[in-house]
């Protein structure tokens, strides 16, 4: 093995792994659940991801952003399971709206109560294609920056910018759709 004898149990101390990554349990589950949409599978994904993260921890060695690194592992694990179950959602590219300036939330004076808002948002999110849903979840709920998103999703920052923008546009449409179907 080529590892230096100096970085032994101190640097890769398994206890450090638990300290750093256990607090991310909710974030990991949230991401897995939004991708997989099925609780038992999401739990399996989280477990597998933690094991993978532990194994990769030696190489990672605390350099760089551990949150984005870890969420990337969760995401990859979730996709592996999705592919395995061949339960892929359609990733057909969304056709751009021609009239981009249309304001999509009408009736701004008619405020929804908070509970209804939460529920409509949730339903609207569920209707998004996976590609849009995950970028919104990662940005809005996990608070990743564009740069972190780029690294987690394996795409350039410019693509993050446009995908997030299109995702939000679609989300606003779905939200209006959900709202009007009530």
């Amino acid at each position, binding site marked *: *093995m080529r590892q230096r*004898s100096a970085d*032994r*149990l101190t640097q890769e101390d*398994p206890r450090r*792994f*638990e300290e750093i990554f*256990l607090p991310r*349990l*909710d*974030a*990991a*589950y*949230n991401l897995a*659940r*939004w991708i997989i949409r099925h*609780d*038992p599978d999401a*739990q*399996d994904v*989280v*477990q*597998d991801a*933690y*094991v993978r993260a*532990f*194994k990769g921890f030696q190489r990672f060695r605390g350099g760089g952003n551990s949150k984005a690194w870890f969420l990337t592992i969760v995401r990859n694990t979730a996709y592996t399971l999705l592919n395995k179950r061949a339960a892929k959602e359609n990733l057909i590219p969304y056709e751009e709206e021609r009239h*981009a*300036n249309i*304001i*999509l*939330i009408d009736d*701004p004076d008619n405020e929804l109560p*908070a509970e209804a*808002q*939460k529920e409509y*948002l*949730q339903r609207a999110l569920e209707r998004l294609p996976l590609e849009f849903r995950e970028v919104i979840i990662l*940005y*809005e*709920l*996990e608070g990743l*920056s*564009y740069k972190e998103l780029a690294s987690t999703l394996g795409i350039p920052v410019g693509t993050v*910018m*446009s995908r*997030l*923008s299109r995702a*939000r546009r679609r*989300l*606003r449409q779905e*939200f209006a759709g959900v709202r009007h179907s009530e």
Partner: protein
Amino acid sequence: MNCEEANRFLDAYLDRELDLRRYPELDQHLRVCPSCQSLAHEFQEFRSLFAASAPYQAPSQLRAKVLAAVRQQQVKHAFAFLRQPWVYATGVVVLSLFLALNILFPDAAGELFRQAVLRHSHSLASHHPVDIASANPQVVKTWFAAKLDFVPPVVSFPASGYVLFGGRVDVIQNRLVAALVYKRDKDAVTLFCWAPKKEHLPKSDHLIEGYHVSTWSNAEWNYILVSKLSDREMDQFVDSFRVHIQSGAYF
């Protein structure tokens, strides 16, 4: 910058992620364009909905499962580390580390699986692998209800090729467990199942003395599957079983 461009970059601007060159341009455009201002306001309003939304929280038993899985890895990691040649040169350190780790992370789970394998192989070698022989899940379930203080999920999925052979009560590491036996041609699998008091089994796969062991759990049950089937066949069995459990197609 015109309105069309402004619209494209508006989200990034509100995210404060717009690049240095475009930022002042968009900023300036917003000052002079009321319709884009209005749009920005709409976008901002919509985004504030997320402030109220709560992400999913990890179910309570997931934490225990994750800890168990990680600690299993820690044991493996520690023992792999110990096998390197230079470590043996520092004999005392190695010995005390070995002891400390055994105390901190005892291999109780490994012993559990070994016993499951023993029970599986002994029962099949005997003339009496089941106490209730029936392919009817309801009959088997009723029988268990009279014998144990929990009633295991019993399902039948003959389409997969596995036929429910029957069940028995077994003991593994001082626990009473339900043992369900399924057969397909010459192969037999035993599915051990019990309601955990505290610890939930992490999902794992093992090869012990030539037998494949798969373990998993959900909110209500711990499962251990033992057989001589291949990895893939084990996976297929587990998938069929779980699909039937989740679809509620059990009695």
